[in-house]
């Protein structure tokens, strides 16, 4: 059984974030403007503290007691969440409550604690990040499920709370309703997995499934349970067939929330996906074919590979083709987010032999690019409203050259122009796909990169090539330095991080350290299956 005290210490990063979320919820209600403006600082401090705490508590001895399927996943993954979280806080910091705070500062409105949302907004942001971290250290299905819910529930409110207006309300309702549906599918999958194995513990589940695979092959319940779980999680990833909500919700939500939605649920969803797929394993399975002959497969069990393959290809294609037709910036970025999920699914299909590391490397690149792109957009406003059309970006080069440069860099990186970070992360994915024997997936990925050029270059064209027009005349920079700083730091990261590619590849590869895939042993020698303790 799990040693609770050790596990509790492992949760130090989450505890820090949780405590900070309570703190900012209160601070946000303060009558003093100075105290209220401290809130983003507290968030950043808490995220930095959680990285430090993570580094201190994540020791091999403690992890052994924690009974985790992917013992080292948390170290890289949680640090990644906190790091990008800082950027997401900075993207939010300029716009949440800004109108109201300005009115208060000018004396046009008196402070009313019921009208501010700053406290709740940042509290929910931190809680959602806490949930994403919890997903990464889930030893069993219940923990995993609660972690996933903690990611999603605050985001439903964030969509609604950060801006008053019908559109964000509608987006929040849609997001909540469809999210509940997807959660139901996931939960159904979990239930079937429990039915197939009789355990909630992920490690025991892996052992039992391996036994099944060695004997009669995976039961239909187990397969179906895994597949339903995968499909339910597709909602978090914004992947086919659960992607429909993304453009509507991304467009309806306030811009900082859109940035948050395109990263946090995605990393939580991918981590949950990797964890669940880890129970069936990538390294080979025996299946019984028509004539009753057992064949060994490399990779995930064949039906799961087939489903994931289809999901990945359709997600890439629908994301990129959908992006072509859009005129709204946020809708375009929603489709970009969908397409990027498709790219990352390629890494998941390949598995621990490089694939998952490549996926997490790409996740880092995607996070940095997301922060850079949204931070630039969050810096701009037109008549007090968010900028949400390509026309508004026209002539950005002459009015805000640095922002135009940063937007160009992040768009080109998303498109995959070497030597920017996004391109190199994508090349690693393609490379891993080739090495993993999925050349067709690699080809689809490259083809989609070409399709994606159509709408990514639209950002560049609008910002750099087009002359200013009537719509872009009134576009000004917001009087806050937070998003500008985030844009500069993330933009520089896109340019500079490729220099450390080798280290980042190594670091992201540590996510699968300590994971034991029993499939291979099962195929080679079904009778003499090594136990967990002897390997690695």
């Amino acid at each position, binding site marked *: 059984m799990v040693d609770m005290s050790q596990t509790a210490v492992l949760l130090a990063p989450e505890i820090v974030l949780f405590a900070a979320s309570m703190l900012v919820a209160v601070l946000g209600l303060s009558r003093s403007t100075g105290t209220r403006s401290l809130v983003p600082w507290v968030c950043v401090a808490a995220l930095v503290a959680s990285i430090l705490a993570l580094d201190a508590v994540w020791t091999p001895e403690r992890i052994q007691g924690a009974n985790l399927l992917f013992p080292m996943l948390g170290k890289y993954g949680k640090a990644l969440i906190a790091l990008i979280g800082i950027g997401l806080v900075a993207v939010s910091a300029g716009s949440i409550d800004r109108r109201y705070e300005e009115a208060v500062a000018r004396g046009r409105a008196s402070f009313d604690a019921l009208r501010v949302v700053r406290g709740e907004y940042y509290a929910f942001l931190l809680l959602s990040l806490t949930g994403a971290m919890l997903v990464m250290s889930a030893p069993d299905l219940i923990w995993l499920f609660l972690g996933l819910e903690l990611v999603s529930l605050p985001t439903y409110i964030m969509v609604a709370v950060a801006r008053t207006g019908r559109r964000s309300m509608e987006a929040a309702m849609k997001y909540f309703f*469809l999210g509940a*549906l997807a959660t139901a599918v996931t939960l159904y999958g979990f239930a079937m997995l429990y039915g197939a194995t009789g355990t909630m513990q992920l490690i025991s589940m892996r052992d039992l499934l391996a036994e099944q695979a060695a004997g009669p092959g995976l039961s239909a319940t187990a397969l*179906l349970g895994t597949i339903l779980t995968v499909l339910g999680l597709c909602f978090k990833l914004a992947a086919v067939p659960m992607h429909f909500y993304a453009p*509507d919700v991304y467009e309806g939500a306030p811009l900082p929330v859109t940035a948050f939605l395109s990263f946090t649920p995605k990393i939580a969803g991918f981590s949950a996906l990797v964890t669940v797929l880890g129970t069936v394993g990538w390294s080979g399975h025996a299946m019984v074919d*028509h004539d009753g002959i057992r064949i060994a497969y490399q990779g995930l069990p064949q039906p799961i590979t087939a489903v994931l393959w289809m999901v990945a290809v359709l997600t890439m294609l629908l994301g990129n083709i959908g992006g072509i037709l859009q005129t709204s910036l946020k809708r375009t970025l929603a489709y970009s987010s969908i397409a990027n999920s498709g790219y990352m699914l390629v890494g998941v299909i390949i598995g621990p032999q490089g694939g998952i590391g490549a996926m997490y490397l790409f996740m880092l690149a995607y996070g940095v690019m997301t922060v850079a792109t949204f931070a630039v957009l969050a810096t701009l406003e037109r008549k007090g409203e968010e900028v949400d059309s390509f026309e508004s970006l026209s002539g950005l080069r002459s009015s805000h050259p640095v922002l135009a440069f940063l937007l160009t860099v992040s768009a080109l990186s998303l498109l995959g122009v070497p030597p920017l970070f996004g391109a190199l992360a994508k090349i690693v994915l393609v490379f891993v796909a080739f*090495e993993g024997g999925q050349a067709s997936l690699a080809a689809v990925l490259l083809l989609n990169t070409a399709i994606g050029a159509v709408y990514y270059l639209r950002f560049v064209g609008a910002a750099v090539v087009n002359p200013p027009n009537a719509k872009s005349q009134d576009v000004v920079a917001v009087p806050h330095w937070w998003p500008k700083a985030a844009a500069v730091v993330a933009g520089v990261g896109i340019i500079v991080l490729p220099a*450390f590619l*080798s*280290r980042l590849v190594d670091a992201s590869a540590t996510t699968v350290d300590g994971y034991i895939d029993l499939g291979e042993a099962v195929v080679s020698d079904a009778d003499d299956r090594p136990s967990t303790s002897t390997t690695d």
Partner: protein
Amino acid sequence: MIVAPAMLSSILALAEGPLDAHAAPELRWAGLALLLPLVSGVLCLLCDWMKIRSKLPAVLTIAALGGAFATILRLQGAVGETPVVVNLFDWISWTWGDGSRFHGISANVDLYIDRLTIFWMLFVTGLGTLIALYGSEYMESDVGKGYTRFFGGVSIFLFAMACLVMGGNLVMLYLGWEGVGLASYLLIGYYFTKPEAVAAAKKAFIVNRVGDLGLALALFLIWQCYGTVEYAALWKAIDGAPASSEWTAQAIPWLLMLGAFGKSAQLPLYVWLPDAMEGPTPVSALIHAATMVTAGVFLIARMFPLFVVNPDAMAAVAWVGGLTALLAATIGMAQYDMKRIWAYSTISQLGYMFLGLGVGTSFGASYHVFTHAFFKALLFLTAGAVMHGFAGQLDIRKLSGLSKVPGFRLVSWLAVLGCFWLAAFPFTAAFFSKDEILVSAFTARDERVHVLGWIGLVVAALTAYYTFRVGFRVFFGPVKYEPGDEHHGHDDHGHDHARDAHGSPAAHGGRGHHGEFHPHAPRWAIRVPLVLIAVGAILAGWPSYRTMLNHDERNWVKTQVKQSSAYQGAPAESHGSHDDHAAAPNVAGADPAHAGHGHLVLGMDAHTAVGRLGSLACIAGILVSLYLHLVNRGAADALRRTLMGSVATRWIVVGAERKWMVDEFYDWVIRLPLRVIANILAAIDDLLLDAGIVNGLGALPAAVGRLFRPLYGGVVQGYAVTMAGGVALVAAWVIWIWLRGAN
């Protein structure tokens, strides 16, 4: 293969063992040579951003380049005979499969430092510092406008060049290669309001892309053939394996050659260099004469082990070099723009360097690179000083007797000194370096290249003629000048005037027939670098003087080159009779059977003969020039008229003056067909692709979208039904598969 296998194997046998490189983490400070220019480049960018309108960028750049030079000087003492590899940080290093050869790629940010690296970096950073100092005054009329941009470009250039020369693998070399190309493009197009400058920048960039394609393909093939792109491992791989007869291995030197010919302006890719003179003169001196254009020579010298095993490729290099030298010299004879003449002379001298490489004397080629860097920088910078002083005037017909114009005496005499060096006057540094190349051409093992020795001698005479055509016309004779029409110098004439009053009062003495014009004389920031570079040009001959006076002493440049990859099995070097003269033992192993065998030129020993013939050619050229361009200038025009008068000889003048129509030829053969094809394709694109396929495909997603629109269109139930339907479909499919499998 024309060459008998036996000969090949004997060449291989001569090859020294691989220069085993050892890791030297304690030398990480050598990375400063890259870091400092990069930092100053970034700071220049910041200066531009913060709208700093002062000479600060120049100070930053000079300090950074000086720091890089100091780093290299220190490195010179710190690195011994064996090459060292310094890992700065890991960049690309992956393995897959079992991680053996061909199962991994490693291209970290390493420095590969052998004597060749240091030798090259010494003059790159040293000249770079001096030329930046020169530029700080030369560009001063642009302070607040393009000054920051200029120095940013120079810093980035030095960073890229350091990356190219010091990088430990071909990927870094390639990055540096592209980086210097970019810096070159930015700096040629510095005066971006001038259409000619923009066209020249584009031409340079596009012509270089052809060469870069070769380099990129060579890089891929090297990885494919040898499984590594890191020098240290590459030498081992080459040394261990016999020369492969695979076409891929055979193609590598040819592709590398293409890259080298593009960057170093050789036939057929030389056309960009004369136009590149549209850039500011310090750029012409630094990038397009002294350093960047020698990158091609460096590439072949660095990759010498790949060339020596392929005699055909070597012969091709030699022939291209020799013919380029000849062609460029003939064009140089008939031009009137001083910078353009020096540009053609650069192409011609680069031709000598490739000739040297092709006949196997990587030492001679490197030595010529070294001496050429100094005197050509000197010639360009003096031309720049003239241009700076005479409002952009460069036409040698409109400048005369400058050595008597006060304030220009020093510049003139330094220019004349440079002329002697370029003409390879006996006992100047260039005389020795050219000598090395020509002797090796006459004594090369491959008899197909012997005739190039004679061509080289002819070019030497032509060089002496056109060099002193400029020297005698511009700096001697009656004082007579017309200012140019560039605003550079005119615009800021007012303040220059005031400064000249106390800076160099002599400047006011000079009055040509153009009464109002005062040439403004250069001040210290132009004079000091000129003098230092002139001293450098003189000292560049030092290694040879020592060899000549003291027979025991080995040539310094030679020892540098010998302890590097450029000397692995260099065939001609080990057989050159000149080496057998010297008592110095030959490391590569003098083969007695070959000594003094077939090395006679005109009945004399090759070394003596080339020395005498070279001196003769040089002096003859100078004398002809003296008569035509100083003693009796009318005779030159009369000669031109006579030649133009006869149909039989007319083509010589017209051809040379119009640069043998090579640009026009390329226009007709390459640009015109491309334009025609482009137009045809554009028509097809408009009519067929755009109208039919693209619009059709473009309509497809929209059509698909419309198909589903009734289903959702923003209504949440629609989404929910679709999602649930998707799940149900997948589930049904899986169950079906499972049922089928279970049967």
